[in-house]
């Protein structure tokens, strides 16, 4: 835990996070995707969800609770995947590259 107590770890995580954001921004620009603030907010929320899932699994294994790690991983992972796919479609909506078709054909 000493590594994670020192500020250095979070400093590095922070830099990585900024790199991710810059890369995401570049990717969106290359695709000509408009990224208003609210889309960024959704993206960050999803990052928090996915990050929580990973941290939950790690913590549970660290505590010696493999059942919690597995089931929690499945539950939060499922939510993350579905939310991720949903986010993907929201980000891409309106660009004609896979947004609206096949929706709600019940």
């Amino acid at each position, binding site marked *: 835990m000493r590594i994670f107590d020192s500020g250095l770890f979070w400093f590095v995580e922070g830099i990585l996070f900024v790199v991710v954001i810059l890369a995401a921004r570049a990717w969106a620009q290359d695709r000509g995707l408009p990224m208003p603030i609210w889309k960024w907010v959704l993206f960050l929320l999803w990052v928090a969800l996915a990050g929580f899932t990973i941290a939950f699994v790690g913590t549970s294994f660290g505590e010696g609770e493999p*059942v919690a790690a*597995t*089931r929690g991983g*499945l*539950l939060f*992972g*499922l939510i993350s*995947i*579905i939310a991720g*796919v*949903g986010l993907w*479609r929201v980000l891409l909506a309106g660009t004609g590259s*896979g947004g*609206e*078709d*096949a*929706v*709600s*054909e*019940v």
Partner: protein
Amino acid sequence: MKKPPARLLRVLFASVLLVGALAYGRTRSAPDLITPVEEIFPGSQRIEFQRGIHYVYGGAGALMGWAGAEEANGYGGPMLLVVGVDTLGQVAGVRVVQQRETPVFWRMVRAPEYLRAISGSRFDSIDYEYQSVVAVTGATISGDAIVESVRSSVARVAEVAFDVQLPLPPKPFEFGFLELTILVLFAVGIVGHRLRGPIRRRLRWAGQLVGLLVLGFWENSPITLAKITAFLTGYLPDPRTGLAIYLLLGGFLLTSIFYGRNLYCLYACPFGAAQRVVGAIGGFRLKLPPWVVRLMEGARNVVVFAALFMAFITLQPALASYEPFAALFALHGTTLQWFLLFIVLTGSLLIQTPWCNFFCPMRTFELVVLDTKRWWQGSRKGSPGPVKKASKAWTGARDQKGGSEQ
């Protein structure tokens, strides 16, 4: 397209096997009443079953007392307790002969305490108030079943041995939010079925979402194979307290027969709704080749048969339950069911309702019902519309996208 009679013959064959399994299961699980009666009356030498109760005789043929054992409906299956009453009219002891509650629920009801509390009372002045001894919420069905079994057993002994008619309290008929919702959903389905186009779609979605929230997350009461198996093993839950499953199964059967469409699956089933919601998010677009679809549908039928077979042989309806519904709606399930839930819902992103198509026993039952109906109507020449709809229903490869009623 295969000839219906051939498929029906397979179903018939499978049914024969299942009935055999059921018969075998019943013989294996006949409850042993002698041992508990001997425990209640130590020193008993002879036990005779007459007029519906056991007569217990001790040394030198002296009558020690009587024992009554009447079944009551527990949560997981029939429950049987045996009550011994001595010649003075006092409860000599009570024993649990058979119960099929899930272990957590059974522990919750603390049966031994209740049984000890009523021992020693006179048979006509037993305080049946369960709550005063072991107040339990969350396992009311199990607790009520214990009381009912004891009460019926005592009443039987009272009638035969003492010629006393003990009053049995009337049970109120419970009709609540869940039951109302089920009726509304079927009603919406019947209406929606007559309409076309966007209105039908909206009604479908509205019904699905209500079903998802109420039958799913709020009440966790979808139809499960365990409940169907319970019916088929002759264990019918008390309709006064468990009306919901009668409404659901009744609705499923009646709409399949009279509309040719299973309105439970289309309007009420919460798990189907969950898959469709995920599908709407994911925009499923994967088309499976028809041979894969047929293979997986065949596999589904085999799995359903196997699950039923296991449940009948062991007479444990809970064993048949491979559905992951409770994992989604109550976070309650085995790790295997969790994995299944994960696979099904992520699959729903790409494929339309994978559970309904490839895993759900209700789809198999629907096919059997529709097969039977079509064969029945085909043998009466000149039948109208429903036949056509039925035949469309089981066209081997379904459209994966748009239009077709799933």
